[in-house]
């Protein structure tokens, strides 16, 4: 086997602190090597956790159990509402309960390969290692995972995995896991170890002498802007798919926390690695506010097809078998309808782009359950997917038991995020990023049922074990006072920006700019990207940003609940992040995972990776809004899973 060439020496800013030794031993060795905070000293520390989704709630709860003083912040009215709650399909673990040949090593291998060889081997191995403990933990919390009649846990195969390693709770796995974490967090709130701030949005990270010392928060009800200081700050604020405006993310999902951290010195890694999910309900009109995901698990039993003749306008059920093109089964006989997300999305997009789409706007492909219903019976299908079918019917007014679903690819998840080392610390000491907010485990493409696994791995098991390494240096030091100049200045800057939004007094709403940005991004930095399109997008984003700052209209005041004002700040940050995504996509002259550059494809339209030149993490450093960001590289080496062309044929 040939090792991928190292493309560059590591930037001195990017010390990933990956432990030595055989990969199986690295996490154990590391836990032994890092400094600990002894139990009696933990109460002397303050930790801030921003975000109460899976990663944030699990981290805050676990810190509280360990004895730290925690302040947790969420912009929702309750810690139970984060978008983790919408994850449907399931959570992976290497339990091998079905006895079908799974192992930690196989989960590790599949994840590295599925990520198209752009993730760190050591991080991924650790993720696979702790996956089993997550299932134990959440089951003990009362998460009602699906069970067999004998009372044991049921597993299913998911998203192209060749083993059944996915645990699920109907189509509501994210909801149930989040409730588990929320319960654990609530217990700590009652115990007084966690102070929970709801309807509170973080608007800046405060840095003193190069390390994170606190945050600035706006109370979304009263408008009051306040500072909170701590020994360490953890960002668990999710991904940035809403940069595309139409995505499967919840309406409030945003990049403000990570972007503010980025502007304060945290490097942003692989911003162009975004995931377009193949099974979403197609948009029906221009007022659509978001796209709804239909769980990938549907591909286990549904067959994807389009009419052979693109002009065939007959209702789906009138089109005979031999006039249908089951294109995934045809192109990828080994994996068929279960190819990974990026492959399935691109195949659908190719067909739709060539005019072969179905539905009134011709923007979908069929996902057909007729043969599964015939084989398994309607009851079984209802048991497996009942709530999804119902959701589909609510939105489209079509009954998927009778006519095939129509599906369409939509932005769903962002593999990119803040660069973190093996301890999950960003390039700003004392500032951590967990869950979707960091970049570390999924490379260029995330496998189905792995987001929940990573969020909970980070929050329950990884960060609580690594944070002591940093904290131990600050034993018996008080957090920086919020009276300190750094806090006073940060609060003033936040207030000034808020006043700016209100003072523009233009004519266009925040949503107008968000929608326009989304169009630019999905067209040029979505499923397929080209040099020409990306360069055009960058100039359009700059123009739109200028227009935003001169023609935005936000009514009302900053002294009470003002949803337009909240959104203005988020869209202002998206307008900067979008440019960086395009810059990163331009720089990465290869196709890998979710990043598909049309210039780099094989003859049959598959992604062509360039391991010679791009086997690295791209981490970008903020300079100022008018200066292109500086690129740092962390080379990736593959000792255990030799890079190969992914083939699902």
């Amino acid at each position: 086997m040939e090792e991928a060439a190292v493309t560059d020496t590591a930037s001195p800013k990017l010390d990933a602190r990956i432990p030595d030794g055989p990969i199986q031993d690295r996490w154990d060795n590391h836990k032994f090597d890092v400094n600990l905070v002894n139990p009696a000293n933990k109460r002397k520390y303050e930790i801030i956790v921003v975000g109460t989704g899976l990663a944030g709630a699990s981290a805050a709860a676990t810190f509280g159990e360990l004895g730290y003083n925690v302040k947790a912040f969420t912009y929702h009215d309750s810690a139970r509402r984060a978008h983790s709650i919408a994850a449907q399909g399931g959570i992976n673990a290497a339990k091998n309960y079905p006895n079908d040949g799974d192992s930690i090593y196989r989960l590790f291998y599949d994840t590295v390969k599925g990520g198209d060889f752009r993730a760190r081997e050591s991080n991924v191995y650790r993720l696979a290692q702790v996956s089993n403990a997550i299932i134990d933990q959440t089951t003990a919390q009362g998460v009602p995972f699906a069970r067999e009649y004998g009372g044991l846990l049921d597993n299913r195969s998911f998203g192209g995995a060749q083993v059944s390693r996915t645990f699920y709770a109907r189509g509501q796995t994210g909801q149930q896991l989040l409730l588990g974490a929320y319960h654990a967090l609530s217990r700590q709130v009652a115990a007084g170890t966690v102070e929970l701030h709801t309807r509170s949005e973080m608007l800046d990270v405060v840095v003193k002498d190069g390390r994170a010392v606190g945050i600035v928060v706006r109370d979304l009800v009263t408008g009051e802007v306040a500072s909170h200081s701590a020994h360490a700050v953890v960002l668990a604020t999710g991904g940035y798919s809403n940069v595309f405006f139409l995505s499967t993310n919840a309406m409030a999902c945003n990049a403000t926390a990570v972007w503010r951290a980025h502007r304060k010195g945290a490097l942003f890694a692989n911003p162009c690695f975004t995931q377009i999910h193949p099974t979403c309900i197609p948009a029906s009109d221009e007022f659509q506010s978001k796209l709804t995901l239909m769980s990938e698990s549907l591909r286990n039993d549904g067959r994807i097809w389009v009419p052979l003749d693109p002009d065939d306008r007959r209702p789906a059920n009138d089109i005979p078998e031999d006039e249908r093109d089951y294109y995934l089964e045809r192109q990828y006989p080994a994996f068929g309808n279960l190819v990974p997300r990026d492959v399935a999305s691109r195949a659908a997009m190719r067909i739709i782009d060539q005019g072969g789409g179905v539905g009134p706007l011709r923007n979908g492909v069929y996902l057909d359950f007729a043969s599964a219903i015939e084989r398994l019976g309607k009851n079984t299908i209802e048991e497996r997917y009942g709530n999804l079918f119902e959701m589909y019917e609510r939105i489209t007014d079509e009954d998927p038991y009778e006519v095939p679903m129509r599906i369409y690819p939509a932005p769903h998840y962002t593999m990119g995020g803040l660069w973190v080392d093996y301890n999950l610390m960003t390039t700003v000491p004392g500032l951590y990023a967990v869950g979707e907010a960091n970049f570390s485990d999924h490379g260029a493409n995330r496998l189905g049922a792995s987001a929940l696994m990573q969020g909970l791995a980070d929050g329950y098991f990884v960060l609580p074990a690594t944070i002591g390494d940093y904290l131990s240096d600050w034993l018996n030091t008080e957090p920086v006072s919020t009276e300190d100049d750094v806090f006073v200045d940060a609060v003033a800057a936040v207030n000034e920006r808020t006043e700016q939004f209100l003072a523009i007094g233009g004519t266009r709403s925040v949503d107008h700019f968000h929608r326009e940005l989304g169009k630019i991004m999905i067209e040029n930095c979505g499923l397929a990207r080209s040099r020409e399109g990306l360069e055009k997008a960058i100039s359009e984003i700059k123009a739109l940003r200028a227009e935003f700052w001169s023609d935005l209209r936000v009514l009302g005041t900053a002294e009470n609940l003002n949803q337009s004002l909240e959104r203005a700040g988020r869209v202002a940050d998206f307008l900067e992040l979008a440019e960086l995504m395009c810059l990163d996509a331009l720089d990465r002259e290869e196709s890998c995972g979710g990043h598909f550059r049309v210039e780099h494809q094989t003859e049959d339209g598959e992604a062509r990776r360039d391991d010679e030149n791009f086997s690295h993490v791209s981490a970008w450093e903020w300079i100022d809004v008018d200066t292109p960001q500086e690129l740092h590289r962390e080379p990736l080496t593959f000792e255990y899973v030799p890079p190969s062309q992914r083939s699902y044929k």
Partner: protein
Amino acid sequence: MDLTLKVWRQAGPDAEGGFKTYEANGVSPEASFLEMLDQVNEKLNEAGEEPIAFDHDCREGICGMCGVMINGHPHGPQDGTATCQLHMRKFSDGDSIVIEPWRSTAMPVVRDLIVDRSPFDRIVEAGGFITINTGAAPDANMTRIPKEAADSAMDAASCIGCAACVAACPNSAANLFTAAKMQHLNLLPQGQPERYTRAVAMVETMEAYFGSCTNHGECEAACPKNISIDFIAMMNRDYVKAQFKNFARAGQA
């Protein structure tokens, strides 16, 4: 579709509120109810009037953030449907629609259609959890759980915490929410060691904020997740049995 909306506007918790009438013209029947409100807000913003504030987030019926009274029905006319999943095709051209926030003393209006549901969190903090620290769990398959019990727990656990049950109840009772949260855990073997203390703590916290249940059943009818009032009966049974327990000597047995 052309619609007339009567919307509750209230600048803040202590401000006086009132209905304002807005015309919503050219609404697509394919739009969701909240997308219709988005369009109204867009026009209000253009006209220089502050947009209507309403809670919403996932727009997939799972986060529980949204919810308004629509013509007197929590989440509107369609059974088992949260406001965000309600589509305008369920209305007719020319309809008048009255839109109000949830009404309950325990959940005061924050602004316009937004209310403060934080008492729900207090009920969970009182005992709506299983006491287990991270890392202390046995193997997940060590305890077998009858499928029926797991399925029933899942039915209860489907609660999205939207508070439609409270809004629907003539007494502003939160029994359906509390029962769902409690029975999710009380039905499982993992929930047994704290079963009866949980019942007492959650019920008593609930009663500190909300009215009493008199078995109207409006909550079940309004629930966007169709959660059964059977769980209220199960909660009551656990609460009554708890009164006869000697926790100090016998634990929850």
